[in-house]
């Protein structure tokens, strides 16, 4: 059956070429969004420069090749009087050699510039301003500030109010050395504004890298997130990096170290939660609360006013950390229990509270919330 569909197919060809043009135009109008954000670290700036080089080449190649496709589609439609075969070209060695060599040159160039950028990004300072060990445990981040030897922990952000849980405070303008530690599965340290991420591998060999926040970004807080699937809570495993001046940082660090010395983390922050292992049941009523599938089983709890009480907390989420943190109506922390990794139980001894309504949540999963009515 000879092909005689030319008339019917011509509109389709036009639509197709229009579409292709639209895609190209769409890309063009979105150029600003086709860039990653401006980097906030000197290492990220290198990445951004490299991205721009690759992007310009990519756009040029795309437009050239796509243009050739559209040209062929528009120009070489079969016409009704095309009875004879077109020239049967089988190839052209010269052309084929040219279009093998040119891409080779382009990719070798890209390889060289990306290798150079890599060396800058991976470079590590001999005398970093701050050494931090980022600990990624399902599904929360904590940050241990280390002494100059790189091993002695000065203090660790935790659920009991040391530092802000899940927030890393760093001074701007000097290299920060980060080692990455995971006690369970693989996570990844990812801060979009740094244009950088690195896997947190469990095991004896720990990844490390340096970053330097631009001095101009002082006072900013950068959103970070786990970027390697680590289980059900992966999407909520966020953290923040707060950039401050060196002076602010020193003051903050000293405060935190002093506070840690005053109240060792094991016994919890004021007022104290029960030590792990379970203390004998205290006086006062016992409230049952469980966490499962990243949610509390009860949204509301009742407690007696002006009387200490106990929360029997059951974490049913396998290999996942939860706790219970009760906040005063003014937003200050009234009680924060120790993190328990499920499946496990804990007895929290909560302090006496005045009558009123108190929100509680899991410090690791801010989306897990409820209310305690004290009366």
């Amino acid at each position: 059956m000879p092909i005689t569909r030319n008339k019917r197919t011509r509109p389709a060809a036009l639509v197709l070429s229009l579409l292709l043009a639209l895609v190209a135009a769409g890309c063009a109008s979105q150029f600003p969004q086709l860039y990653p954000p401006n980097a906030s670290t000197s290492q990220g700036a290198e990445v951004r420069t490299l991205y721009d080089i690759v992007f310009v080449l990519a756009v040029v190649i795309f437009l050239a090749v796509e243009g050739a496709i559209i040209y062929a589609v528009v120009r070489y439609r079969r016409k009704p009087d095309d009875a004879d075969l077109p020239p049967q070209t089988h190839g052209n060695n010269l052309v084929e050699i040219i279009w093998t060599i040119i891409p080779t040159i382009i990719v070798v160039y890209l390889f060289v510039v990306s290798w150079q950028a890599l060396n800058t990004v991976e470079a590590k300072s001999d005398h970093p301003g701050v050494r931090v060990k980022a600990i990624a445990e399902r599904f929360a981040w904590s940050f241990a500030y280390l002494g100059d030897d790189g091993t002695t922990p000065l203090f660790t952000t935790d659920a009991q109010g040391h530092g802000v849980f899940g927030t890393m405070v760093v001074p701007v303008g000097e290299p920060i050395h980060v080692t990455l530690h995971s006690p369970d599965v693989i996570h990844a340290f990812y801060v979009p504004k740094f244009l950088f991420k690195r896997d947190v591998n469990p095991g004896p060999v720990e990844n490390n890298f340096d970053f330097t926040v631009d001095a101009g970004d002082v006072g900013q807080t950068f959103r970070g997130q786990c970027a390697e699937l680590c289980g059900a809570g992966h999407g909520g495993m966020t953290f923040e990096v707060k950039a401050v001046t060196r002076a602010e940082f020193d003051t903050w660090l000293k405060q935190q170290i002093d506070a840690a010395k005053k109240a060792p983390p094991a016994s919890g922050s004021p007022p104290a939660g029960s030590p792990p292992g379970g203390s004998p049941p205290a006086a006062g009523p016992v409230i049952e609360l469980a966490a499962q599938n990243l949610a509390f089983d009860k949204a509301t709890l009742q407690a007696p006013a002006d009387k200490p009480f106990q929360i029997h907390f059951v974490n049913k989420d396998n290999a996942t950390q939860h706790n219970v943190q009760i906040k005063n109506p003014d937003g200050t922390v009234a009680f924060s229990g120790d993190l328990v990794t499920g499946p496990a139980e804990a007895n929290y001894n909560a302090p006496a509270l005045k009558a009123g309504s108190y929100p509680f949540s899991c410090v690791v999963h801010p989306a897990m919330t409820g209310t305690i009515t004290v009366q």
Partner: protein
Amino acid sequence: MATTALTPAATYRSALYEWVTTTDHKKIGILYLVNSFVFFFIGGILALGVRSQLAVPDNKLFSPDLYNQLFTMHASLMLFLFIIPILAGFANYVVPLQIGAPDMAFPRINALSFWMLPLAGIIMLAGFLVPGGAAAEGWTSYSPLAQAKYSGVGTDLWLVAVTLIGTSSILGSVNFLVTIFKMRAPGMTMFRLPILVWTALVTSVLVLMATPVLTSALIMLFIDRNYGGAFFDPANGGNAVLWQNIFRFYSHPAVYIMILIVMGIVSEVLPVFSRKPLFGYKAFVFATAGIGALGFSVWAHHMFTTGTVYLPFFSFMTFLIAVPTGVKMFNWIATLFRGQLTFATPLLFALGFLTMFLIGGINGAFSAAVPVDFALHDTYWVVAHLHYVLFGGSVFGVFAGVYYWFPKMSGRMLNETLGKIHFLLVFIGFNVTFFPMHLLGLEGMPRRIATYASTAGWNQLNLLATIGSLIIAASAVPFLWNVLISLRSGEPAGDDPWEGNTLEWATTSPPPPYNFDHLPEIRSERPVFDARHGRTGGHGGQS
């Protein structure tokens, strides 16, 4: 050489019995296609689940755990039970016809290869019924997340299913290689093989060499999970990144397993609908082999952020792959130049392939530049990239193949109008879904997160992507309707509706058992073209 006696079945058999027991490569090929499309639609429904969950921020439609199961099973079904098998299905149907063979070399092993697939699919999907649900670690199943203490029995089912699929692929690849090397018709020298056969050959080599490595990794993980092994769990002294190394040694060649035969399909469609031979046949063959060979030395470019691989080596090899891929792209475009293009649906899908694969190739180059990959890795940029390659590339090519060979398989033409509606819907829906994902990735949205905060700034683009996915879903309607009505009342196709080049168009539609009553003389890679025009139109290559 084993030949089967040409005696027809003596007794009447029901059609069902005939299809279940068949060893005819054409029927097995069609079984592969139908089976793959069943899993394509199941995988598509799972994808709609993923997109519904992400349509709005802070969505609680699915629990995070169920969400992880959805995207894990979506990827596993699409890769292991749709793309890889459907290409094996096309090769099964077309390769023996194109080389002038009566059947595959081992017809019964061929049937065995096929029947492992539905079994594996059932085992994999059974994960949704067991306590703890289906596998939820992503299709890459990274350890230690895939260890027993973090995941349920669904992961064991997943491991068993993928091992079965791998075995099926390995047996299939042995079958293809022996068929291609031993069953060719007289005159069909290696450099007269149609390009599809060449891509099937290279794909078979990749399957033969890469898939057993995956099998070994799956078995080691199974031992870790069930018998206290210590391969991949650092808690037992094992090495978490070791899994990635072994798995990726398979999974990068697997990318080419999923695209090379599609390139073969496109290389069949473009010459036929532009009435010209493929430009640079030999260069194309060497580019195919080159991509296959380089594909084995780039596995760690999926692992740039692990901090455990030697980055420049893998960066360089990855960049190098762009060269043979570029050669292919230029060959295709040069094939169109000075041709006489007829815009039937197969050509539309093939052109769609060219454009989408071009984008998928170029945005891949970003990740080959290691520092840029530090920014883009495991974000939605990568999701966009892989879908531009595997959907915009592979699936468009698959549809080109369906529209191209449906007349040969069924004896009836598909409806052109419905076909064009189908193409437009897929093309628009695909770009609306996946182009925004580039931007989401650049804005820092990691992949595989079950939900996101409304303050993250990702709301509009995610909603747009979800709308696009609904357009893709809608495109299934004209396609299925088209297949249904065309099977019943399509225009009769005749032997050679497209003025084809290769031997499958020299026999009836559908071909008889054992394919050919007589063969035209084979003096080039386009024997049917030569017979139609009474001349030898080969590229002059000799074996």
